[in-house]
Every structure is written in C-alpha cells, then in structure tokens.
C-alpha cells in the first residue's frame, strides 16, 4: 500500500485512475453516445435491407396490378354463311365478322381512316373464341352470336388509365348544340368554359416558356459559334498576312462553315422566338379562343349519346367535329353530359382521339367490361401484349424442374451419404469436398457455357429443350443439395449409428435404415431451397437457347420451350407498353411459386426437425 502511494521512483510509475472528474464524466457520456450511435447504425442497416425489399415488391405489385384484369367488349356478331363456309368452318373470315359486328354499333363510321381506327380497337385475336365456338357448333352459322371480344392492348391500357392520363369533368351547366353531325358548336352560355379555357391558356403559356428556353439555348450556341468565327477570322487574317497559303485555306473553309452554321442557327432562333412570342400572346389573351392542335391536350365532349372533339375553345362555347353522331340537337341539361380531358397530346400517345371516342361510347352503352385476365394463365406467348400468356413458360418450367429434381435428388443424396458416412479421409475425398464447395460458388452463366459446349455441341442434344435445361440446372443445384444433405446427415447423433451397429447391423444397414430416415426432413428442406433457386435461374438457360420465341405449349421433354424467368426476361425487353405490366405479372407469379416453396421448406424445418 505504502509502495503504491509513494511518488514514482526509478522504473515504477504510478497511474491515477480518474473516474470522478468532470472530464471523466464527459468521457463516459461520449462513450455511451458512441455506443448508441453504433447500435443505431446496425438497426438502420437491417431496416434499409427491409425497406429495399418492401420497395422492390411494392413496385412490382404496382406495375403488375393492371395485368390481372382485362377489358373485354360485348358485341353482337353476325356469322353469315358468306363469311363462314359450313363445310370448312375453321377457315372462315371471323375477323371480318367481328369487325362488322362492331361497325354495326357505329353506323356513322364510313371513311377509311375511321374504319381503320375502329378496327384497331379490337385485338388481332378478338375472333379466336368465336372461331372455336362456331367450329364446335356449326349451327351458329347464319345466326347472330353475342361474343366477348378481346380489345387491343392500346385500348385496354387506355381503359385502365395506365397509358394516358385523362380525367372527366361533369358539366354543371346546360349546353346547346348546333347540330348532330359535322362541325358543330356546343354553347354553354356566358363564361361556361372559362375554367377549361384558363387551363388551356396555362398549358399554352408553359409551351411558350419551354420554347423560349430552347430559343435561348440556341442563341447561346450561336454566340459560341460566332466567337469561333471571330477567332477563325483573326487566324485567317494573320495567315494571309504571313503568306501561309495552306493554313489560310483551312481557316477560310472553317470561316465559311461557321458563317453558315451561325446563319442557320440564328434563323432557327428567331423563328423559335417568334413562335414562342405568338404562343405567349395567345396565352396572355385571356378572353381569346384557343385552338386545339395535336400538340395540345384533347377535349372530348360526351353529349346526347355522341362525342364531339373540340377544335377550338372560347369562354362561352366550343367549336368541334362530331366523331360519334349525337342523338338529337336539343339542349343537354347540367349533369346529363360531360367533358373528357385527355392530358397527353394526341401526337405523343398511341391511341387516337377517335378511338377514345369509340371506347367512351361503348363504355356508356355498357358494352365494355373489366374481367379477371384468365387468358393470361391459359395461353402461350404472343407478339400481341393482350394475347400473351404464361402457360407455355409454366409448363416449360414444370418439365425443366422435373428433370432437375429427378437428377439432382438421387445424385445429391448419394454423394452426401458417401462423403459423410463412407468416404475414407484421403486426398481424393478431400479433393471432391473442395471441389463441391467451389462448384457452389461458380457463376451460373458458366454452367450455361458447359451446357452449350457439352450437351448441345458435343452430345448433340436438342436445343432449347427442357431436357437440357433440366440437366444444366441439376448440375447447378447439385452442390447446394449435397451440402444441405451432408449437414442433415451430420446432425444425426452418432449414438443412433452406434446403437444400430451394436445390434449387428452392417454399416450400410445402419445408414439406410436408421440415419437416413432421420435426416429426411433436413434433406427435403435443402432440396426445396435448391429447387427454388433453380426455378428462378435465368442466365444458364439463355446459353442453351431457351430464349426462343415459342407460342406452343411444349408437350415433350425434347420440345423447344422456355421457362418463366426467361419469359420475364424476354418480355422485359419488348418496347410495347402493354408488355410491361405482363412482365410484372409474370414476376408476381414466379415470386408466388418461390414463396410457396420457401414457406414449405420453413414449415418442414419447423415441424419435422429433430433437435438432439
């Protein structure tokens, strides 16, 4: 005690523990703050991962939602004997018949362009169901059949509201129309359309502003060119003065080019300034009427069973062309008519105003229904988004998984039993073990290369077939299954083996009669997880050609097929907007399968796992 409290002498240094001073208290506080911070980082990391999952799933669900419903059109189709021959019912002109049926709803559609627009509302597969129906029952020829026809993808997307932004405005005032066909005016009384006009003026002024900005950008470019021009001119002058002819010629050409560019740019700039100015004047003239061109939103007026497309809007009324004739020219009461504002301009969307008018009329007649999209689950792939389904891919996946399971389960379990129970500890088994562990981490695309070089080119197996796909995936998941099965075998306590051996069983009897049955739940869990992994695998299957566009549902293991993840990849590459929702819907189906499989694995683990 005295030694310690003595002042430091020689080599002995006393160290005072300061735990009471204010500095010490601050230090402790700082350490606890650091502790809290550290803990928060950890929690934040876990929450971030969870958030990523939520965002991923909700984004895909949100995109997939529209694909689970489908708009269908109820239409009366006259199946005439001219269109369909009784003796050859399969070859009849059903498309024409369905078009005629739709045309009958719109007797006023006579011009070529209108007919074309109306036909484009229907899917190219609209008559398939009718064909089947008539072939099954030829007595229908000569009758009028009520069918539910598939709409084209663009029409479908419009009706779902996912491609074009449109909103309806019920009208709070009475409207007088000047006629039922041709160019007419819709008069709503003083100031009736002031709201619409103001909205249009706002859009015009925004267009003017963006045009002005573009003009400014052009002007800046022109300025920089004129600076270049000046520099070139100076160089030209100095080169000419120095008598360097070649250099002078180069700069002469440069000056000419710059001058030309400058002139074009300046002309463009001034033209754009002028049109921006004109637009701004139009916008600032609050009372003046506004013309609707294809770069402006469309205003459709649904009145008296007809549709008027506005060409010009003033404060009191609208001038427009009738697309679908009105029933009468009497005044429409407030609430009995409405306006439809399609916000995206006509030249930046796929569906025309005419088609919107037809669809809205059909909708008002109650001929359009939104139903669950069964065809998506029971048809094969197609180039048309509204006809494409996942059945082919599902069947292809099922075949591929069957081959994979039949191969990798016996092989994997056999290898695991040998390595865990029988293998002597030597170099060879050590090599096998290292090899399996490494194989589990080889990139999946490399297995695709193996499949391509070995199975397709060397053994000459059929390309794109579930057989080869299953083989490749079996090799891919084999290490997973071996590792899981070994873990399951290892978890069976040695006492089981010893008891079996003790009553006279052979080594193999002990393993097959006693150890293996106890390891089955673990092996099953590992197998299901491995199969789930195989089900979601895409890259190696691309290598062996399972990426072909295949309409038919495969019937044999050697038929060309595709699988669900590859179908997703194929669809995601297509430019049509309709396929985006289909892709997301296919993803939802795939994820559902995976969740069910993984859930099954968890249940198996929970229920049958034996804790020793």
């Amino acid at each position, binding site marked *: 005690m005295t030694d310690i409290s003595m002042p430091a002498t020689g080599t002995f240094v006393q160290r005072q523990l300061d735990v009471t001073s204010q500095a010490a208290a601050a230090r402790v506080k700082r350490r606890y703050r650091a502790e809290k911070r550290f803990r928060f980082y*950890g929690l934040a990391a*876990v929450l971030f991962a969870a958030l990523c999952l939520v965002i991923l799933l909700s984004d895909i669900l949100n995109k997939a939602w529209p694909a689970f419903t489908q708009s269908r059109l109820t239409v009366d189709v006259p199946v005439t004997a001219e269109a369909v021959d009784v003796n050859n019912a399969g070859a009849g002109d059903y498309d024409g018949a369905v078009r005629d049926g739709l045309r009958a709803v719109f007797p006023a559609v006579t011009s070529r362009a209108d007919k074309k627009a109306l036909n484009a509302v229907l899917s190219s597969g609209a008559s398939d169901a009718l064909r089947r129906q008539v072939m099954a029952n030829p007595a229908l020829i000569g009758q009028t059949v009520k069918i539910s026809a598939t709409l084209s993808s663009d029409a479908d997307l419009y009706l779902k509201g996912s491609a074009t932004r449109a909103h309806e405005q019920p009208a709070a005032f009475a409207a007088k129309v000047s006629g039922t066909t041709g160019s007419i005016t819709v008069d709503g009384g003083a100031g009736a359309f002031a709201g619409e006009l103001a909205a249009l003026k706002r859009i015009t002024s925004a267009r003017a502003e963006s045009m002005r900005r573009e003009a400014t950008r052009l002007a800046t470019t022109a300025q920089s060119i004129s600076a270049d021009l000046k520099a070139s001119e100076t160089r030209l002058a100095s080169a000419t003065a120095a008598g360097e002819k070649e250099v002078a010629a180069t700069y002469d050409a440069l000056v000419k080019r710059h001058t030309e560019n400058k002139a074009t740019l300046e002309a463009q700039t001034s033209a754009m300034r002028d049109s921006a100015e004109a637009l701004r004047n139009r916008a600032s003239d609050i009372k003046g009427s506004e013309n609707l061109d294809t770069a402006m939103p469309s205003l459709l007026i649904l009145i008296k069973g007809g549709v008027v497309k506005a060409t010009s809007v003033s404060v009191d009324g609208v001038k427009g062309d009738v697309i679908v004739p009105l029933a009468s020219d009497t005044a429409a009461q407030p609430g009995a008519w409405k306006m439809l504002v399609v916000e995206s301009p006509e030249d930046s969307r796929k569906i025309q105003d005419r088609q919107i008018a037809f669809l809205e009329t059909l909708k008002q007649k109650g001929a359009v229904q939104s139903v669950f999209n069964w065809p998506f689950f029971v048809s094969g792939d197609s180039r048309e988004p509204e006809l494409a389904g996942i059945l082919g891919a599902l069947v292809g996946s099922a075949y591929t998984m069957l081959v994979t399971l039949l191969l990798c389960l016996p092989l994997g379990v056999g290898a695991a039993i040998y390595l865990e129970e029988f293998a002597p500890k030597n170099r060879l088994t050590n*090599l096998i073990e290292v090899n399996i562990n490494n194989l589990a981490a080889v*990139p999946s695309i490399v297995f695709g290369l193996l499949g391509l070089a070995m199975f397709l080119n060397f053994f000459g197996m059929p390309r794109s077939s579930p057989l080869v796909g299953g083989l490749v995936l079996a090799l891919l998941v084999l290490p997973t299954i071996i590792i899981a099965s070994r873990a399951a075998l290892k978890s069976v306590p040695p006492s089981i083996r010893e008891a079996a051996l003790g009553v006279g069983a052979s080594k193999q009897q002990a393993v097959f009669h006693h150890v293996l049955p106890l390891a089955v739940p673990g092996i099953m869990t590992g197998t299901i997880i491995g199969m789930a992994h195989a089900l979601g695998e895409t*890259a190696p299957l*691309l290598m062996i050609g399972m990426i072909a566009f295949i309409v038919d549902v495969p019937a044999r293991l050697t038929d060309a097929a595709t699988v669900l993840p590859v179908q997703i990849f194929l669809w995601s590459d297509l430019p049509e907007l309709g396929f985006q929702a289909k892709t997301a819907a296919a993803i939802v189906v795939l994820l559902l399968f995976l969740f069910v499989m993984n859930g099954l694995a968890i249940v198996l683990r929970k229920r049958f796992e034996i804790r020793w």
Partner: protein
Amino acid sequence: MSATYFAALAAIVLASYLYGSRRAYALRALSPSGGVHSLPVYHGWYMAAICALPMVILFMVWASAAPRWIETQAIQKLPVAMQSADPLARATVLREIASAAAGGALAQSASPEIKQAASSMQSLTELSNWAMLGAGLGLAGLGFLWGASRLRPDFRARNTVEKVVTGALIACSVVAVLTTVGIVFSVLFESLRFFGKYPWNEFLFGLQWSPQTAMRADQIGQSGTFGFVPLFVGTMLIMLIAMLVATPIGLFAAIYMAEYATPKFRATAKPVLEILAGVPTVVYGFFAALTVAPLIRAAGNYAGLDVASESALAAGLVMGVMIIPFVSSLSDDVINAVPQSLRDGSYALGATKSETIKKVVLPAALPGIVSAIMLAISRAIGETMIVVMAAGLAGNLTFNPLDSVTTITVQIKTLLVGDQEFDSAKTLSAFALGFVLFFFTLILNMAALKIVQKYREQYD
C-alpha cells in the same frame, strides 16, 4: 421406345427380385445348418442388380451411339450429289430427313430423295430399337442365369449388394468432379481455339472491345477487336458500386443481428434478408432497368448531370442490394463463431458493447469477414441478369459511374444468344471470357474458403 425399354427393365427388376428372395427361403431347406448367410431381401436385390445393370449400361452406350450410325446410313442413301462434306449442309439435310421421317406438314413437301432417306431412317431406327430391346433382354437373361447359379446358402449376397451400392454412391460423388472437369474442358478448348485465331496478349491488354465481325470479306472493320480491358474495367466498376452498398450495410446488419437483436427481432429480420437473397436475379434486373435507372437519370438531369440511360450506377446499386444478404449471413455466422470468452474478457475490462465489437469481436472475426466479402465479390462479378438488363452493351473504357459500361457476363450472353457460327472468333471469344470469369471467381472462392477453414480450426 425408351419407354418400352424401361418398362421391360422394371418388369425384369421386379421379377428377378421376387425370384431371388423366394430362392433364399428355399435355400434354407438346403442348408445343412438351416441358416443362410444373407437376408432374403439381399438375394432379391442381388438378382435385380445383376439383371438390371447390364441393361442400363447397354442403354447408355446404345442410345449415344445408335443415332449417329443411323444418320450416316441415311445420308449414304442419298444420291452422291446431295452428300456434302460441309458439316453445316450435312446438318441441314439431316434436319430435313428427320422432319420427313417424323411426318407432319413437312413430310409431304419433301423431295423424293429425302423421302427415300427418311424411310430408310425410319426403318433403321425401328430396327435399332428392336435390336436394343432384344440385346438388353438377352443380357438380362445371361445375368439372371449367372446370378441364379451363384445363389447358395453360404453366398454373401449382402456384401455383394453393398459393394454395388457403395459403387453407386461413389459414382454420385464423382459427378460433381466431372462437372468441374466438364466446365474446365469446355471453356478451355474453345478458348484455345480462340487464341489460335486471336493473339492472347492483344486480348488481355487490348483497350478496345468491338466483337462485330463482318458478314462479307470486303466490309469495313472486317475482323473484330477483342480487347478485354474495357470489360474488366466495367465489371470492376459495377462490382465496386455493389460492394460499396453491400459491405457496410451487410456488415452492420450482421453485427446488429448477432450482437444486439433480441431473439424476436432476429426471428423476423432473418427471413426478410433470406427473401432478399431468394428473389431471382431477373426480378432485380427488371427493377433496375425499369425503376431505378429512370429514377437515377431523372435525378441526374435535375442536378444538371448527364446520365446514361443504362448507367453503371443503377446496375451497381441494385446488385448491391442483392448482395447484402450474402455478406450479412456469412458475416453473421463468423461473428457468432467468435468465442463468448473473448467478449466476456473485454466486458470485464470495462469496455462497452460497441467497443468490444470494434476492438475484440471484429478483429477476431476479420478473416471470416474478409472471406465473406470475397465470396460476395465473386458473386457480383459472376452475376448476369441484372447487368444484362440494366447495363450497356458498348465497351466504354470509363470510370464514371454515370456512364454506360459493359461487363464480362453481358458480353458472354450477347455473343452466345441467337444464331451463331461455331467457328468465328466472335463466338469463341465468349468462351475465352467464360474462361477468365471461371478462373477469376475460382481463385476468389478457393482463397475465401481456405481462409474460412483456417479460421474455423482456430476456434474449434
């Protein structure tokens, strides 16, 4: 046909099994001591195996050899003018013959020569099938006779069957080795062929990647350039972005799960991370291409930056999210494996929990964490679908994450999907890329696994 063969096989297995086990009961009477060495079951299995094995082996040999023989015979039936030495023309003719032989719409429109060859192919196939069945049955019969002659009371049926089973088990575990050998050979041979056409040093150190080879000889840019460097840089760039996301988040998540989380929290958080790992990569690719990339582009434009629509950043970020669970679950394991005594020692000295983790647990677990990160890197380099869907195709040599880059896997996929001529440098270069990818990831994996093994031994 193979269905018939296997039905016969099944019937024979059943019959010989039943015969073997019955005989075992009968042998009991013959035995002087009244005992038989093995259980009747083993006699049954012995008989089944000795009948079935020759049949199975015969099927494997026959099924792989017969089609080629039939094809050669069918082609020889064609007039000499139609027999071509060119493998491509030969394959076309064969396809025609095969489709004509299979019947269907094409069969009627085929030329008489083809039809003749097809009919000979049909008859030959039928002949070969019957011959295979006959030979198989004969072999099974021989096996049966020989096996039956060996059944005696002191016959060690169990030992023989167990030997067969052990052989089968060894064969199962050799499949994994064969897979590796197959991978090595398939990428190695094609790569060697590629390097026969293209110098290896230009491949490894070339700065330009444009594999487009011209269709006609007089076209410009007739032979492609296969410079690996842009692909390597692109792969590394995306991998680096992914690891910048995955390493800190995965590591912190692992620390929290292993050290702080209550069992209840763990029980919910662990499945969430597992789901993140179980989502197929094609789904991540879709998400990256259609949601994240446009978002980054919009944000970049808002900030006045020029962002490519297939930026490395989008692919890298999404890949990073995909890799989080790999880092976290492996790190979680190694952190859990650090002995509690080390922590207790640190607490006893007055350290807080975070100080213990930073100063004691993490240094002790460092080798394991490093190997977890190495495995994650190997996963990021080999990942295909995310980059195929969200990264670019052009081999830009750039380090700018907002630019579009391409990766090794994207190029393999692009070069090998669709119709290919199997001799062009373009197609073969994909195998050279596969070779590089395989060995690069192999070295990473082996090093990582070695580290983990060493580390396990240290604390076991």
